[in-house]
């Protein structure tokens, strides 16, 4: 059975955020960074975070969020933008596909979660 090195890079971890078990899995594709952030063990709501086409190279592009699967509510867009903007920017303005299933989306928790995502950097 042939088994060359995987061409998809991924990292995952589990940490506690305000007492809740939180898992992160990051996977790198050439056209997407796929981030799963979950407190239910599931992908949950699937959101695409896409940089708008750049008008010039000097300014950093703004990001659009779109709920691909799940409940489309304002807080989801806020969380997604907050969590995925730095990923997209650091990955050379690549779109981020974000799976979000949170029990706690307080500002304090979101801040901690960003650090967990950073610890799984694949970009």
């Amino acid at each position: 059975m042939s088994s060359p090195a995987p061409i998809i890079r991924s990292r995952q971890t589990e940490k506690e955020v305000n007492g809740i078990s939180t898992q992160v899995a990051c996977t790198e594709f050439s056209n997407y960074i796929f981030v799963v952030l979950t407190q239910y063990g599931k992908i949950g709501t699937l959101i695409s975070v896409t940089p708008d086409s750049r008008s010039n190279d000097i300014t950093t592009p703004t990001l659009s969020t779109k709920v691909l699967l799940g409940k489309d509510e304002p807080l989801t867009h806020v969380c997604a933008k907050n969590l995925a903007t730095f990923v997209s920017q650091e990955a050379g303005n690549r779109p981020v596909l974000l799976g979000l299933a949170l029990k706690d989306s307080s500002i304090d928790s979101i801040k901690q979660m960003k650090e967990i995502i950073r610890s799984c950097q694949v970009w």
Partner: protein
Amino acid sequence: VDAVVNGHTSLMIAFDAISVHNFSEKILEQVVHFHVMKLSGGFFLWVGSTPVLSNLAVSMSSKYDSVPLSTLVIGDPSNTAPNSLAQRLAKKTKKQVFVSYSLPVTDSNLGLLVENRIKKELELHPEHF
């Protein structure tokens, strides 16, 4: 305090940690890579020869229909390969299945061989799905 501790413990053991499994196989003169992410009650499967995510379908069984429900969330809807693969895997595993079939769809024979390879892995290593 006890209740809090117990509640906390139940949160910790409510589901298994996400796990990732990679395998690959040379099929019809090209190396096809497979990437599986095991989740609670489902899995994500990517199939491709280059590290591109060109589509994504989601499928799960419904009690109202013998054919699992399926929808394409990313990609060209005229390409039915991701949806049909997701549907067949959802039926076989009874789980929620995310599939990205990022291979060229020019050769229909390839699709069949790829699916057989996935089924083989499902039988050999069910713990990864």
